[in-house]
């Protein structure tokens, strides 16, 4: 026997993700199949000889390498991927592909907007867009990450001037990554592709194998994954969900029972859990179990919309089963009928090709396939993903001001041209809801504006000196301070005071130099303060 | 060998602009270009857009009478316009409107269906529709009043049987594609007729929504708007066309396209074809005679244009006041850099004018839709039979 130490290498982005590896001998028989974590050395016992190592990535790509084991100890280090863009590497790894060769650029699809919704046991409501979100863009795709509150169903809504409004469920994780690119299927600016994944590498990798239909790979990776899931104390909702779908797929009753015992009562807000529970119960022809399975399906309906498309399918099929069962007994099950009616409506607007629940509509409970444009009257929580074009949307200025008012800011880089509209936008914002809102708006703007646009912004904010200066304290470099102060004309003495205080509060390293300057400008010493 | 299409008035970029371009390009390839080149698919078709430089109305045409405003802006103007063109004698019934049209003329129902269906069709669907149009138009030509219509009771049956007839029809002078590519069958609906079905639904919806009201009245509002646009675009062009040294924006656009087309000419594709509609004809005439007289155009087709009228008014840069009906040389020569010039107009299109009395060396063709009003003006290029007849004219002039 020989020992092979095999390491699959990759960047930090994909490190520790499990990968399915098959080892074949020269008779082309599989002698080993295992899940290997990237950047972890794995020991494998094999007879001496020649082998083909087949590394099956979750994206479907297969890397092959021939190894000859000659001594007692052998070592092999195999690099996995060379992505052109590290930011997008995780998406490439799990198979969220986009067409590199397309001539279309995402920025050419104008006026794509988005917003977040959450579910609070009964209703869906718009959420404030997280202030912290990072946008990365190459010509073809945009990706961004979102921090999300835990234990809550969330939907990302995306639409655009010519983009059909849709909702995409967000994984039950605190962080997720979204990739938006022109649709590879429709190269005529009519559609975009939205892929969502979390940073939970183990769960997402298993999910990718399940979706690809590579059941062997899913089984090997899933077995390892589920063992950890069932025996470790800590868990996360995403891992539990994917693990549950995996066990259901395999029909592993024994481990499913353990899964039910451990998790069903701990995660009571996620419909997918109830759905998996229901289908586990249906695996036995037992009256009590069937009754409980029915209850689980109805409970799932109350909990909201399943996160995964497989969950929607199981929910629909389950309701169909109970409905037809009742009809076969010449009975009417009203609750099931009503639930089925509702889910049937979702079924007709669902994009079944996506692994994560994606459906079309104007609101999570107002379903329709063909809405495009910008929600003109209701722009709360709206954020631009690609810049709006004035030609198409005469209301852009108004939308912009409403966007500012609603304390959200475009992820697209603000150009000087956009800044020209700022005064009008602010004037409009000023009329609404008092100073505090305006202050917030300005401070938000200050956070987001790049330094070279700060000074023009200050000019635009002429009458809003105190908040402006306070907000800019963090970002203004010392050498532009005089200019900024001059731009903020007619400044009152006490405002210098506030500014000085802010400089110290913010612990600027140049605070002494700043205050010295201020003192000279106002003929007053601020050092005592 | 490139083809340039210079559009006319009232063309503005919007949702239907791209559809119109796709549809028109696809029909050009299958009809007109087939008469001129051996490989129409290889022809680059350029569509210079000058609509942005056209007239802008400061009050958004609020000066038009209110009743016209109410009737304007209907989402489904096109079915309305086309139905009006066909001039059916009976009141329209949404269940049998297509049948009524078909009984008048199969060619009319084909034009109606294809023109409406092309709106909203993407590029690939436009290609499929154009392929179908070739067979459909040929079928209509050889079967203007088929007997099977007598057994049809409603529009669904009409569409069904029309589909069968056209699918089974082999146009004459074409070989089947068996040698070129395999014949695939689809284990479901192949979807080729989906756009036609959608177009038919749109037509029915239009009839339902205008039930009881004469269509002609509704068209008037559309027409007034069209006239306003036409007058506006003419004034804008004439006042801002510029000079040879400093051409205006519209002319610059056309010049740039002509030069781009010239670069595409090679030994394999050595012809430059220009098709100009309405005001586009005036613009291209001005350009070819004054702004860019060195460029050679092999075939110029003006459709629904006013070139002769403008020359009568001596509005072109090269117009010679001394050449009139009474002068010794009593017609203007065709531009030297245009080898062949065909002018198409419809008697009922009051913006389409003949040229033979004013110009020498031009061939006039009347495309008689038999229908009235300006409504005919903007729909030439939507209609497969128009393309077929244009191709026929080209064929005739070549022979």
């Amino acid at each position, binding site marked *: 026997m020989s020992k092979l130490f095999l390491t699959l290498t990759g960047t930090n982005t994909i490190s520790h993700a499990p990968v399915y590896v098959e080892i074949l001998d020269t008779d082309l028989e599989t002698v080993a199949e295992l899940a290997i974590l990237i950047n972890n050395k794995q020991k494998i016992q094999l007879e001496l000889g020649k082998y083909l190592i087949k590394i099956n990535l979750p994206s479907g790509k297969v890397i092959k390498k021939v190894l000859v084991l000659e001594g007692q100890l052998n070592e092999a280090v195999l690099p996995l991927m060379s992505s052109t863009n590290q930011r997008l590497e995780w998406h490439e790894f799990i198979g969220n592909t986009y067409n590199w060769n397309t001539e279309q650029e995402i920025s050419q699809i104008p006026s794509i907007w988005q917003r977040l919704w959450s579910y609070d046991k009964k209703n869906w409501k718009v959420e404030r867009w997280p202030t912290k979100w990072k946008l990365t863009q190459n010509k073809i795709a945009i990706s961004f990450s979102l921090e999300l509150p835990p234990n809550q169903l969330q939907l990302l809504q995306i639409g655009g001037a010519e983009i059909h409004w849709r909702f995409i469920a967000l994984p039950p994780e605190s962080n997720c990554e979204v990739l938006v690119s022109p649709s590879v299927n429709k190269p005529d600016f009519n559609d975009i592709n939205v892929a969502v994944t979390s940073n939970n590498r183990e769960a997402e990798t298993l999910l990718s194998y399940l979706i690809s*239909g590579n059941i062997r790979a899913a089984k090997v990776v899933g077995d390892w994954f589920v063992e950890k899931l069932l025996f470790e104390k800590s868990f996360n909702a995403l891992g539990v969900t994917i693990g549950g779908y995996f066990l259901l797929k395999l029909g592993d009753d024994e481990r499913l029972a353990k899964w039910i015992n451990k998790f069903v009562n701990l995660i009571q807000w996620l419909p997918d859990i109830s759905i998996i529970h229901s289908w586990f119960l249906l695996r036995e022809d037992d009256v009590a179990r069937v009754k409980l399975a029915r209850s689980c399906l109805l409970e799932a309906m109350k909990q909201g919309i399943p996160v995964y498309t497989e969950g929607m399918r199981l929910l629909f099929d389950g309701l169909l089963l109970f409905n037809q069962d009742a009809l076969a007994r010449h009975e009417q099950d009203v609750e099931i009928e009503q639930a089925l009616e509702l889910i049937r409506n979702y079924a007709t607007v669902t994009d079944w090709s996506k692994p994560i629940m994606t459906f079309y509509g104007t609101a999570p409970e107002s379903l329709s396939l063909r809405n495009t444009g910008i929600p003109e009257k209701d722009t709360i929580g709206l954020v631009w993903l690609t810049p709006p074009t004035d030609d198409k949307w005469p209301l852009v200025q108004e939308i912009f001001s409403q966007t500012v008012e609603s304390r959200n800011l475009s992820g697209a880089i603000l150009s000087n041209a956009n800044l020209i509209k700022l005064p009008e936008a602010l004037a409009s914002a000023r009329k609404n809801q008092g100073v505090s809102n305006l202050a917030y708006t300005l401070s938000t703007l200050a956070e987001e504006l790049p330094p070279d646009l700060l000074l023009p912004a200050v000019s635009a904010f002429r009458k809003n000196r105190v908040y402006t200066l306070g907000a800019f304290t963090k970002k203004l470099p010392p050498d532009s301070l005089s200019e900024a102060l001059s731009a903020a004309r007619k400044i009152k003495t006490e405002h210098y005071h506030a500014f000085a205080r802010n400089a110290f509060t913010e612990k600027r390293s140049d605070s002494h130099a700043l205050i010295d300057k201020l003192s000279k400008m106002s003929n007053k010493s601020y050092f005592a303060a | 060998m490139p083809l340039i299409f210079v559009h006319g008035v009232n063309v503005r970029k919007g949702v239907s602009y791209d559809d119109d371009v796709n549809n028109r390009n696809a029909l050009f390839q299958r009809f007109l270009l087939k008469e001129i080149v051996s490989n129409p698919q290889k022809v680059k078709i350029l569509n210079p857009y000058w609509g942005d430089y056209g007239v802008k109305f400061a009050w958004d045409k609020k000066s038009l009478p209110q009743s016209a405003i109410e009737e304007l802006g209907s989402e489904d103007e096109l079915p309305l316009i086309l139905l009006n063109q066909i001039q059916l004698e009976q009141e329209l019934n949404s269940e049998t409107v297509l049948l009524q049209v078909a009984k008048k003329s199969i060619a009319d129902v084909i034009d109606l269906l294809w023109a409406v269906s092309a709106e909203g069709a993407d590029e690939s669907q436009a290609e499929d529709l154009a392929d179908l149009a070739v067979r459909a138009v040929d079928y209509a030509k050889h079967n203007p009043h088929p007997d099977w219509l007598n057994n049809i009771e409603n529009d669904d049956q009409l569409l069904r049987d029309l589909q069968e007839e056209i699918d089974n029809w082999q146009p004459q002078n074409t070989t089947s594609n068996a040698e070129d590519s395999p014949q695939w069958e689809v284990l479901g609906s192949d979807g080729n007729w989906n756009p036609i079905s959608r177009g038919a639904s749109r037509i029915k919806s239009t009839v339902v929504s205008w039930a009881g009201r004469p269509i002609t009245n509704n068209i008037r509002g559309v027409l007034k708007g069209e006239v306003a646009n036409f007058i506006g675009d003419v004034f804008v062009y004439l006042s801002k066309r510029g000079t040879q040294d400093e051409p205006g924006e519209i002319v610059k656009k056309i010049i740039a396209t002509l030069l781009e087309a010239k670069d595409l000419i090679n030994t394999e594709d050595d012809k430059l074809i220009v098709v100009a509609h309405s005001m586009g004809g005036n613009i291209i005439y001005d350009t070819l005679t004054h702004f860019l007289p060195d460029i050679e155009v092999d075939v110029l087709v003006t459709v629904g244009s006013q070139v002769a009228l403008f020359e009568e008014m001596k509005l072109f840069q090269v117009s010679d006041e001394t050449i009139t009906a009474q002068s010794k040389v009593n017609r203007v020569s065709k531009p030297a850099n245009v080898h062949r010039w065909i002018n198409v107009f419809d008697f009922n299109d009051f913006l389409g004018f003949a040229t033979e009395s004013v110009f020498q060396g031009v061939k006039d063709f009347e495309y008689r839709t038999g229908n009235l009003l300006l409504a005919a003006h903007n729909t030439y290029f939507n209609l497969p039979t128009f393309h077929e007849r244009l191709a026929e004219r080209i064929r005739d002039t070549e022979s």
Partner: protein
Amino acid sequence: MTTIFEKIEKDKAHTHVFIIGVGKYPHLLNGEGTKLDNPMGLRQLTSPPISAKAFADWILKNLYNPDAPLGSIELLLSPAGEYVQPQDGEQFPVEGATMENIKTAFDRWYNRCNFHKNNVAIFYFCGHGLEKIVGYPLLLAEDFGKNQLRLWENAIDFNSTYLGMARCQAKTQCYFIDACRQTPSELQEIQEIRATALVHPSTSQKWGEVLKLFATHTSQKAYGLNDQITRFTDALINCLNGLGSEKQKKQWLVTTGKLGLNVTKILEKSNKEPNTPQQKPEFNGTGIGIIHVCSKPPSVPVDIALNPIEASNFAKLSLFQTGTCVSEPQLDLSSQKWKDIVLPNVYSCRTYFPLSKYCNPEDTEMWVQPPYTEEEIEVIKLV
């Protein structure tokens, strides 16, 4: 008569096959019967009965599963006609695939499958397909459209039928659906469609080894050449014949876990050929249920491309095994690839250039496995 084969030993597990091939639809476009006012663009077809017969031929001639030998075949074809047994030429009149006949034959097939828990149930359909709700196929029987008042009674609700098959004892079940999965615009306006479930869904949903293999993805089309076998059935038969197999304990086995993957790979490869409409199967398979045990190793297609491609015209290739030349790939001029069909094994590919314009100093090792093997060999241009 639809049972073209029956040989059942008592108390033993068998493979029971139900095959439907529908090409004749009297109530659709160009049909002979009273046509639907709106036939949704559905035409008469030529490839399904040919494909169904080809599938039946393969099952009869080749299917081998020692744990569940072939027990029966139910075959329905439209147009109805004769089926000629490939082994002995015996002729069987075969009934048309009307809904009534389908139900009757299905009942027989179901009862046989349900008889033993180790049975293998195989269901094959080739003909028109639609989907009202994406992912829920409707398979059209020959007499679809016969009654405009109950339009969908002659369409099979595949999803409900599948859910109903959970009742069936047969532990291994395979469903091969060779049909389109589009939603015509006419269906979008209909709220609910009640097609026919051949067996009503059960609230007991315990499954063994299952494979659902569709010729195409939801909302996509499936294709066949006129008067020839369909693309999907062709790939399916090739895979059953070995290209969908994997080696386990010295045997080449076609299993529920692997067959779908390999059919997909074969179709994706042939999608690249010129003038071929794009088609990608969809499958949902679990487990290691054995469908067929190959009597011999499969013959695997090999494609070898040289880089640079211009070198191909000057090259000669040979495949060696333990020092012996066992095969010589041939250059396919249209693709400029060297092609061969060999048994699965590890080969050395030697590339040499008689005219010395290029060279390849080292042999390339090739591990040839089903469904096909592609290799690119870098060669050096000599100055």
